[in-house]
């Protein structure tokens, strides 16, 4: 992964920084320049809730080359307690015992690595709460 491309997303991946529209209150993750709900253009930086529930998921058994060593792994959509939804892996679970509506929390983990000599890429993953 190009280092600059990785570096740009650090506030979101490491600290869950989101943009809250000052006009309508809609939270955007990642932050946006224009609010897709009200077209507002001023935002406050907030930190997302780290707890939520699984709204859907899958077990990826055939992955792209980059993730092939990790299979099988769970990827799901988590709805955080503040209502925002994001896509994340669900780590440290028996992949055959995951269920919709399970309570989860976000933790800081290594997500992928850039070959043998490239950077290690970190971010959030969910674990059962």
């Amino acid at each position, binding site marked *: 992964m190009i280092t600059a491309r990785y570096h740009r997303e650090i506030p979101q991946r490491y600290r869950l920084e989101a943009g809250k529209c000052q006009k309508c209150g809609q939270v955007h993750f*990642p932050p946006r320049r224009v609010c897709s709900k009200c077209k507002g253009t001023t935002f406050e930086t907030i930190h997302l809730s780290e707890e939520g529930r699984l709204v859907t998921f*899958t077990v990826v058994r055939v*992955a*792209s080359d980059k993730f092939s060593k990790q299979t099988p792994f769970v990827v799901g*959509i988590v709805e955080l307690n503040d209502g925002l939804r994001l*896509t994340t892996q669900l780590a440290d679970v028996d992949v055959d015992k995951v269920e*919709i509506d399970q309570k989860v929390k976000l933790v800081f983990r290594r997500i992928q690595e850039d070959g043998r000599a490239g950077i290690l890429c970190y971010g959030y993953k969910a674990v059962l709460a």
Partner: protein
Amino acid sequence: MRDVAVVGTGMTKFGELWGRTIKDIFVEAAHKAIEDAGVDHIDSLYVGCMSPGLFVGQEHLSAVVADYLGVTPVPATRVESACASGGAAFRQAFLEVASGASDIVLAGGVEKMTDGADVTDTLATAADQEYEVYQGITFPGLYAMIAKAHMHQYGTTREQLAAVAVKNHRNGAKNPNAQFRSEVTAEQVMASTMVADPLRLLDCSPVSDGAAAVIVTSLDVARKLKKSYAKVIASAQASDTIALHSRESLTTLNAVVHAAQKAYKMASLKPTDLNLIEVHDCFTIAEIVVSEDLGLFEKGKGGEAAAKGLTSLECGKTPINTSGGLKAKGHPVGATGVAQIIELYEQLTGRAGSRQVKNARRGMAQNMGGSGASCVIHILEGQ
């Protein structure tokens, strides 16, 4: 806007065309379409292609195909809208002719997916790279999450998903251009390799090479050619959020709903007026969700309808994917939307052989990109 018609078609067989180049398969399809239409020139061309840069290392595909088709200096443009690239290219041709800017336009689509690229990774570029794909999600995985949500919310079953694959393989077996001309049983679908739970290998459209092309003209030109034509009575397109997780509902594809509403309005039709529909069944769950979002079945009832055979070629109502769909015909992504138009043309002009829907007069093609972030819909009417 002027009335617009499709007057000729051409396509390659879909499949693993190891010995062929991307330009060669496109030229085969485009040349056949020009010959079939009987036109002596084209005013411009559009080529739908998702990712020649990643699949075969070639960008600027528009100029490549114009050159090898021998039609320079006509304007040539590549259209990219992920797996909806073909439908979007056809729509550009439609708009160019409808506007009066051109009389005869070639709309084609092509993809060469078997040249060794990491196909899973390349297709994933149609999702949000930083906030979906970064976590390792794949396209089967995205549609699997839609399937899980649909099963949880509406009680859709594993058997109902399998019914879609069984029906599309049955239709594909009758299509000489299909990648898979073999029938499968529900047991085979449900015993095939798990790709992304609950989707198995036989729930997924294959990796394919292929090209398709049609000639789009004004209705006046079509009449003068004295060939069978099909009139384009609706062209509509809509978008949605790039990430699946940003949508209010995980089981409704809003771009499909919006594009369908626009198309029905433009054609002054309702879903039951259609004699056949080609839908974008990249995965079995997609056909079920789309059949609901097009208004053919009530929300949550698409699985049941598929299992009851209400979408089969023999159903006597509105069969879905008489061509075999993406599942059996194959899914060279950029070519798919144009190949759907070809199936409509063949059905509406009575050329569909053993797949022929009796008295087919109106057909719809629904083509989509990503996890539903782009949708292009066309309705064609026979003479």
